[in-house]
């Protein structure tokens, strides 16, 4: 037969495995001062925060990063060789490499060549100025790289064209000497193909460009801040009330 101690232990275990809704009401009633007090603190803090916080201005620009489109011959898979790796741009911007301006946030939506740059400053004009500076810096660096690449391709094409002319002269000479010209013609064909590839590469160069912005929005606490601060106070109050009650129970048990 179970002893009284066993019964007591069992009943205490059962109590632990149940939630009594009346307990909630009892605790709320018992600790109403703490709950109400923290609710009021939250409310007042929210009101002060709402009225005393100065406005700040968040600006955003979206850039499309340029590069050279490549298609792998074997797989046909498309890829872009960027003028600057998107993650590297993001990292350099975050570290302030483009100049001295407030901390920037950079987002690169996965699998895209877009980059969203946003900053927050205390003035609308300052936000626009800083974003314009960042944009100009990035565009000028990338455009310079694009132009350098195009020039390099042009030079290579012109050099290849000279090679073709030299082959043609060799062909004329070979014909006059009644020698074989097929290998020379093959070389011309190969060189022409190289020129075609280079011209194609040139058309595949896309420039870095602005897609959107700078867009500036005023950032200041809205009236919901007061509501959230009060709710936060109430929530902390309730949690504290239940925690104190739980501590009391633990103390009694010990």
């Amino acid at each position, binding site marked *: 037969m179970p002893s009284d101690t066993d019964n007591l232990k069992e009943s205490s275990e059962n109590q*632990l*495995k*149940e*939630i*009594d*809704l*009346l307990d909630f009401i009892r605790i709320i009633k018992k600790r109403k001062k703490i709950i109400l007090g923290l609710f009021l603190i939250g409310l007042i803090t*929210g009101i002060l*925060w709402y009225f005393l916080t100065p406005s700040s201005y968040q600006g955003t620009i979206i850039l499309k990063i340029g590069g050279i489109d490549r298609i792998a011959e074997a797989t046909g898979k498309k890829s872009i060789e960027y003028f600057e790796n998107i*993650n590297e741009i*993001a*990292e350099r911007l*975050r570290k302030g490499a483009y100049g001295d301006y407030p*901390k920037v*946030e*950079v*987002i*690169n*939506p*996965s699998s895209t060549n877009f980059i969203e740059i946003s900053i927050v400053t205390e003035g609308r004009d300052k936000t626009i100025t800083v974003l314009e500076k960042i944009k100009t810096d990035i565009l000028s660096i990338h455009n310079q790289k694009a132009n350098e690449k195009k020039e390099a391709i042009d030079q290579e094409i012109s050099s290849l064209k000279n090679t073709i002319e030299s082959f043609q002269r060799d062909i004329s000479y070979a014909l006059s000497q009644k020698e074989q010209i097929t290998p020379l013609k093959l070389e011309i064909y190969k060189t022409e193909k190289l020129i075609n590839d280079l011209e194609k590469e040139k058309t595949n160069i896309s420039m870095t460009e602005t897609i959107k912005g700078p867009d500036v929005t005023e*950032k200041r*606490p*809205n009236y*919901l*801040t007061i509501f*959230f*601060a009060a*709710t*936060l106070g109430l*929530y*902390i109050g309730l*949690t504290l009330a239940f925690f104190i009650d739980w501590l009391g129970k633990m103390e009694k048990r010990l």
Partner: protein
Amino acid sequence: MAINYKETFKILSLILLAGAIAFSPSFSAGTLSNEKIIEIRVEDILIFVFGFLLIISFLTSGKTKVERPPLFFPILIWLGIGLLSILINWAFSNLSVDKGFFYFLKELQFFIFYFYVFWCIKKIDTAKLLVNFWLFFASINVLYVFYQIVSGLRHGEYGTAAIGEWGVFPTGSFFLLLLIFLFNLFLYYFLRLNISIPQKAGLGVLSFAPILGVFGSASKTNFAALIFALFLTFLFLFLRKLDFKVILVFILAIVFMIPTFSFVLKNVPDVIRVKEIIPIFSFKPLWESYLNSRFYDVIKPTFEASLESSAHLPFLGMGIGYVGEAHNQYLRNFIEVGFINSLMFFILILAIVRRSWQGFSKSRDGFAVGLSAGLLTTTLTLLFLSFAVEPFIVVKPMSVYWFFTGITMAVLSLNKK
């Protein structure tokens, strides 16, 4: 015999809920501030109605006490700190109201699924009936995948889709979780039932059939997780009991996998993606694929950006719903709910692992052992998946996970009584 209408309604509501999770498509209910669509599914409406009716029925019954489900406190603290983080970030205007609200609501819903299932199961037979229904619902989904493969009309992001789903990961993980639960139930429960061999074979095929959905989805991550899950299933089987019959079935299942995979590979061109990580046992291709497509592109930059974005980040985070896509559950937790709740996440997971391990190692009833083994394996598999994706926020697999967690915990509690 008088019909107990209340009990019948509860069972019916659970079947409807399971059916909605398995089949419901999503409907657009507007867009969030980040232009992400708010998707509503039939189970969202059902759980709201059933949950409301359950509360009304409890309040009108005159009772004041309710059974405390296992995991109650870890879940309560996880949600409590999550809510605190959201409220703080809302107050400081760090987090948009709609994002925080809907993401938190979604998370809350998973736990409501769990509590609802736990409170509604009063008999082991109800749990068994639900498992049978899940087996049926899974089979319908597998038939749908088979139809897509044969007809060539694929409805998934890359390969085939589950009914009402499109995304590669949600489809793959939905089938993966069903496979783990049903296959473990087969190994420890169905196989030991007093039924004929053809009946057992039929149940075996139905339990293992969701593998077709995993392959068909063409999800590399789920493919890697499948190998991990099968390894764990075998390991637990080895730890529990080395029974020749069970081992034979396990080997047959693996053998069944090969023609299934080659059938899918022949008919679903996008499954070729999975081939990139097929030499999984050498680990290198898998690791390289992870580094190139996840770590350097998303995880590392997201982590670095998050470190610089807020002063209070390490403690309470930026609020649930802040991160777009982190491709890592642990990173998402760290950014959104901070260090404190990240720790709480592990405590919650540890509590699930502990309970399921106890159920697995101490239960004598095959049904409870099968459910516990399934829960243990899925939980560890989800932790594995969490390195490359955020499985704990994906609706379709998570609804299945918490539904089965509810069944498992209810069965373990009923067995104790």
